[in-house]
């Protein structure tokens, strides 16, 4: 079980070299295979998360949720996607046509890029990069530009407000997000994600860096535009923010991308603070990739739980909270971590 | 039912102040249109009455006249009073606006203008239509308003 995916990969590689494919091409083919499988993974997961979100939300609201399509309504998201595919893509007047049509297509690029460096299990990472965390943070903020461009090109004031909010939110919450991770990086002294996971072999960083985890979680909620920071969408204020004018599959892409982003933030959380694919309490018989998914889904569930409990905060409060609370707090965390490490070394445990 | 109307002596004082006042048997008051603003200011500002709450403002279209109806309440004393103003001019009904005295009169006057066509004067940019389209012809609550259409048409 543990090496099932690695086994598949190596047998595939063996199959290609058996066909006489040179090593260089073989590497490229394997990379493409990995990326495609990640894309499939993202899409399937996003579809599942749409269903899960609806189900969890319904249960929290004393409802049943989707139960009609498939067993327990499991195929509901497929039905939705089918419906959305069949819908007309409405092009409003005065839009920037190229940007308007390009944005829903590009919206899956940042998640795809990020997943390349996330270890889903032991040795299960598409690209093992030395500057993984750095790369991840750099790429993660790209999606904001897409949201903003989508809002701008829609020629709708609601979309524009949403796009602007998205930029403002990203700028103010990217900083605490990065600063929170800095504590972890200080402890490990590496930017390689695999090594960060390995460093948590003894103790998860959620225990040594609880403040950083909290800041990361809050900033992560803001990054994914989910309640209580769902100002970008803000359905009771600005209809659907940047997606207001999108219909059919364009809307569905944004919708699925939101879940892809939720997965990324949860996966990052898992990797950085929850020990990644490491098994707790020596429960090694469960494969590492299963542990990873388990932890990721716990995080996703918490995201959903928070979403269906809290109201939305206002834009100026959002800014104030980001700059006046989270940034100083994360700086203080770095300071305390530094001092702690110094003392730790001085004592010489 | 308990009686919440203004006591007789206070009514008497009002009657002396505004000779044109006509007090009906159910203690509704009919005020001449010219006296409306001074009368309303008096009963609002005079602390004996303190009619500070304009509950209701409406109008009715009779054969020979329009009638404006104002329902006032005193928050401090608990009095209620119905004030009526008769507008004899059916062709061009006009009455001073109460907006300078009560902010609450604004929308209600706009409603009456919209539906009944009574023009409220003395308040800039007032009244305008509130429910119906700006291009709508006529005022539906007038008795002579005829509308063709509906499901039978």
């Amino acid at each position, binding site marked *: 079980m543990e090496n099932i995916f690695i086994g598949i990969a190596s047998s595939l590689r063996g199959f290609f070299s058996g066909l006489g494919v040179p090593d260089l091409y073989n590497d490229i083919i394997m990379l493409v295979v990995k990326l495609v499988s990640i894309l499939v993974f993202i899409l399937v997961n996003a579809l599942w998360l749409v269903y899960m979100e609806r189900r969890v939300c319904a*249960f*929290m609201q*004393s*409802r*049943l949720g989707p139960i*009609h399509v498939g067993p327990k309504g499991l195929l509901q998201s497929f039905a939705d996607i089918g419906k959305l595919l069949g819908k007309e893509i409405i092009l409003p007047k005065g839009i920037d046509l190229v940007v308007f049509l390009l944005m829903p297509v590009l919206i899956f690029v940042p998640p795809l890029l990020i997943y390349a460096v996330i270890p889903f299990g032991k040795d299960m990472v598409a690209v093992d990069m030395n500057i993984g965390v750095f790369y991840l943070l750099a790429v993660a903020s790209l999606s904001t530009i897409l949201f903003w461009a989508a809002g701008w090109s829609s020629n709708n004031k609601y979309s524009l407000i949403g796009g602007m909010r998205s930029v403002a939110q990203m700028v103010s919450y990217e900083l605490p997000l990065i600063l929170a991770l800095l504590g972890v990086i200080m402890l490990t002294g590496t930017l390689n994600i695999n090594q960060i996971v390995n460093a948590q072999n003894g103790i998860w960083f959620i225990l040594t860096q609880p403040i950083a985890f909290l800041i990361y979680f809050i900033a992560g909620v803001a990054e994914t535009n989910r309640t209580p920071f769902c100002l970008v969408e803000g359905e009771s204020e600005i209809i659907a923010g940047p997606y207001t004018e999108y219909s059919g599959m364009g809307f569905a892409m944004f919708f699925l991308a939101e879940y892809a982003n939720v997965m990324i933030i949860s996966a990052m959380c898992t990797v950085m603070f929850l020990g990644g694919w490491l098994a707790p309490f020596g429960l090694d018989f469960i494969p590492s990739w299963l542990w990873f998914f388990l932890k990721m889904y716990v995080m996703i569930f918490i995201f959903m*739980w928070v979403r269906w*409990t*809290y109201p939305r905060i206002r834009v100026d409060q959002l800014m104030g909270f980001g700059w006046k609370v989270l940034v100083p707090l994360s700086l203080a965390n770095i300071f305390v971590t530094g001092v702690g490490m110094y003392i730790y070394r001085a004592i010489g445990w | 039912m308990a009686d919440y109307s203004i006591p007789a002596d206070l009514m008497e004082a009002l009657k002396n102040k505004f000779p044109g006042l006509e007090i009906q048997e159910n203690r509704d008051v009919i005020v001449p249109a010219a006296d409306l603003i001074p009368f309303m200011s008096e009963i609002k500002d005079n602390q004996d009455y303190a009619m500070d709450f304009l509950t209701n403002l409406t109008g009715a279209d009779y054969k020979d006249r329009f009638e404006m109806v104002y329902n006032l309440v005193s928050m401090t004393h608990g009095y209620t009073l119905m004030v009526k103003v008769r507008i004899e001019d059916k062709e061009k009904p006009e009455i001073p606006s109460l907006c300078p005295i009560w902010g609450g009169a604004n929308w209600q006057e706009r409603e009456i203008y919209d539906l009944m066509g009574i023009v409220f004067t003395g308040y800039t940019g007032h009244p305008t239509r509130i429910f119906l389209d700006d291009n709508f012809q006529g005022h539906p609550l007038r008795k002579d308003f005829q509308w063709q259409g509906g*499901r039978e048409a």
Partner: protein
Amino acid sequence: MFGQGLIKGLQITWGRLLDKKHTVKYPYEKIEMFPRFHGRFELDVEKCIACGLCANACPNKVIEMEKEKVDKKQFLTKYVMRIEYCLFCGLCVESCNKDALKFTNVLDMNQYRRSWVRLSLVDRPAPEAAEEAPKEETPAKTVKVEAAAGQAPVKEG
């Protein structure tokens, strides 16, 4: 303390997550309406004397009826309710002295077309003479059964 309300909220939603659900799987499970429910109309043609009180009581002119005089008695030939205009206020049922017009607690009256919504409770020819009258009871009864079974007679089209 700040944050108490936030935690309380999470507790409440968590409690509801595992709690009893309050909705039902609608088309398969139905909630029985109360006996007084203003649902589909039902007309007992036997009792109806075609007096027209219901049509008069209606604020929205929903009821259309046609009657013919047979043997000095009014005979109801047509009774159509234009449900698309109905307010379901119950004034017609209340006005009925003979208890002929009634509400049932049947909920579904939805149709694919607006024109199909129209509810035709009686549609029958007048009998020629008095002795033929009993024969005519049968179609009236089928109409009633149809209405009770929850299928709107869609003859009107």
